C-alpha cells in the first residue's frame, strides 16, 4: 500500500525529513539530557509552540508558515511546548535518563490513561509496538488544556523510534 517514504505518503516524517528539520536537536544534545524534539516538517500556518517556550528556544518568525526552529542550547526540556502543539508533533527526549534507558515525554489524548509504574506497548511513528515502556508520570495540568503528557522510560536504543504508546482498551466501549 505504502511504497514511498515521506510524510505525504506514510503520514510520518522520513529519516531525511527529520534530518533536515530545524526543530530536531542533535544527537549530542539528546545525550546531554532532556530536550524538545519538534517533528514539524510541513509549512502549515501555526505558531503556538514559539510563544509556549519560556526560554525563547523556539522561533518561527513573522511568517507563521515557517518551520519552528529549536535552539537546542536554550531548551531546558521543560516540556511546556508538548501540549501546546495542536499537531501533537513535539516530544521531549532524554537519552541520559539512566542505565541503558531513555525517557520520552509525549502527548496523549485517549482514555483510559495508564498509571505510574504500568508497563505499556511503546509504539513507533507508524504505530508499531517496538518495546515495552515503563510509565514514569502522567500529567494533566490545566495549562495542557485537555492533553495529557506522559513520561515513559524505554531502552535507550529505541529513543529515536518510539514516539507514543498503544491505546489502552476502553472498558466504556462495549466489545472494543
Amino acid at each position: 500500500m505504502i511504497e514511498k517514504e515521506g510524510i505525504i505518503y506514510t503520514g510520518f516524517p522520513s529519516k531525511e525529513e527529520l534530518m533536515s528539520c530545524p526543530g530536531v536537536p542533535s544527537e549530542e544534545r539528546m545525550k546531554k539530557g532532556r530536550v524538545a524534539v519538534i517533528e514539524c516538517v510541513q509549512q502549515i500556518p501555526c505558531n503556538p509552540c514559539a510563544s509556549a517556550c519560556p526560554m525563547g528556544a523556539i522561533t518561527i518568525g513573522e511568517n507563521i508558515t515557517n518551520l519552528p526552529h529549536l535552539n537546542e542550547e536554550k531548551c531546558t526540556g521543560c516540556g511546556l511546548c508538548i501540549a501546546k502543539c495542536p499537531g501533537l508533533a513535539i516530544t521531549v527526549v532524554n537519552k541520559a535518563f539512566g542505565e541503558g534507558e531513555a525517557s520520552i515525554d509525549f502527548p496523549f489524548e485517549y482514555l483510559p490513561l495508564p498509571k505510574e509504574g504500568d508497563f505499556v506497548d511503546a509504539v513507533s511513528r507508524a504505530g508499531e509496538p517496538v518495546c515495552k515502556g515503563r510509565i514514569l508520570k502522567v500529567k494533566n495540568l490545566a495549562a495542557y488544556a485537555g492533553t495529557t503528557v506522559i513520561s515513559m522510560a524505554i531502552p535507550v536504543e529505541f529513543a529515536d523510534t518510539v514516539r507514543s504508546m498503544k491505546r489502552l482498551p476502553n472498558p466504556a466501549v462495549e466489545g472494543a
Partner: protein
Amino acid sequence: MKTLETEVAIVGAGSAGLSAACQARNAGAKVLVIDENSRPGGQLFKQIHKFFGSHEHQAGTRGYVIGQKLLKKTQDCGADVMLNSLVYGIQPEDLTMGIIQNGKNCQLHAKKIIIAAGAKENYLPFPGSTLPGVMGAGAAQTMINVNRVLPGKKIVMMGSGNVGLIVSYQLMQAGADVLGIVEGAPKIGGYGVHAGKIRRAGVPFYLGHTIKQVYGKDCVEAVEIAKVDEKFNSIEGTEMMIEADTVCMAVGLNPMTELAWMAGCQFDFIPAFGGHVPLHDWNMETTIPGVYVAGDITGVEEASTAMEEGNLAGVAAAEALGYLSEQDAAEKKAAIVERLNTLRCGPFGEGRRKFKEHQIADMEALKRGEFVGRCIEK
C-alpha cells in the same frame, strides 16, 4: 404573517455569522442572526481538537472553546439570535427574507443581508452506499462530539483531507477503531501532523484506493476496496475486504449557495473551493447590492478564515449603514485582511489565496462590465 425588521440580517450562526454579528453590533447596528439549528455555533462545537493558526486566531485552543467564547461575545454585544428558523428565500429588490420559524412563516425586512450558510458534505455513490452505517464524516463527528453517540466500532474512512484525518482521530478518542483510511489520490491530502496522530495509533492508509462496494444485509458488514488507475477507476484483481460496521465519507464539501442563487448573485466555478461560489469584493459584498457573504459559502476553507471573513462582512455592512467612518472601517478591514493573508499562505494556503484573488478580480471585472462566469482550475 409576522413581520420582523432589522438592520443587518445574518443567515447562519456559525463561525462566520457570529463573527459578522459581533462586528456589526459593536459598531452600533441592529443585528439579527437566523439559524435553522436548535443551538448556535455551527461547526465550532464539533471541533474538539486544538486549532492551528497564530495567537490572534487562538491557536492551540480547542474549537468548541473558541465557539463558547464567540457565543459569549455575541450575547455580550447584544446581537439577537433566532434559532429553529429556516431562511427559505431572499427577495433581492427590497432585501426581504422568508423564514419558517418553529413551523410558522414570517417575513424579515433588512437593510443588509450577510449569508453565512456554510457548506455541506459531498457524497460518493457506490453499491451499498445507501446501507445504514454509511455516512458523512461530519455526521459521525456530530454524533460523537455533540450527541455523544458512537456510530460504530469498526470504521473505514474514505478521504484523507483534514476532515477525514481529524474525524478518524476523534472516532478513536470516542472509543472506536479506525481500520483504514482509503484515499483515491496517491498522497495524503491533509496536514501531516494530523496524519501522524492516526499513524501512531496504528491506522493504515490505503492511498490510490477507492471503495468499490459495501456489503451487508441491513447494515454495513464489510467494505471492499480496490486500487485505482489515473482516472480513479478501480483496477480488477486488486480488491481487498475489510470487515467493518461503519463507513465514513470525507470527500469534500460544497458551499450552501441556494440563497445566493435565489438572490441573483453572479458566480464563478472554482473546484478547489468546492464548486460554485458567489463573486464578492473585499467588503464581502456580492453582485447584489446589500447582500454579503462570509465563510464556507464563499469557498470552502476552515473556521479561522470563516471568522475573519465574517469580521470583514460585519465591518463592511456597519460601514455601509453609516455606523463606521470610512477611515475607521478601512483600518479595521486592513487588519482583518492582513490576518486572512497569514492564514492563506504556505504550501497549504497559497492556492486558496490565489483562487480568492481570482474570485475578487472577477467581481471587479463584473463592475467594469467585462465579466463572463468561468471555471477556475489553476
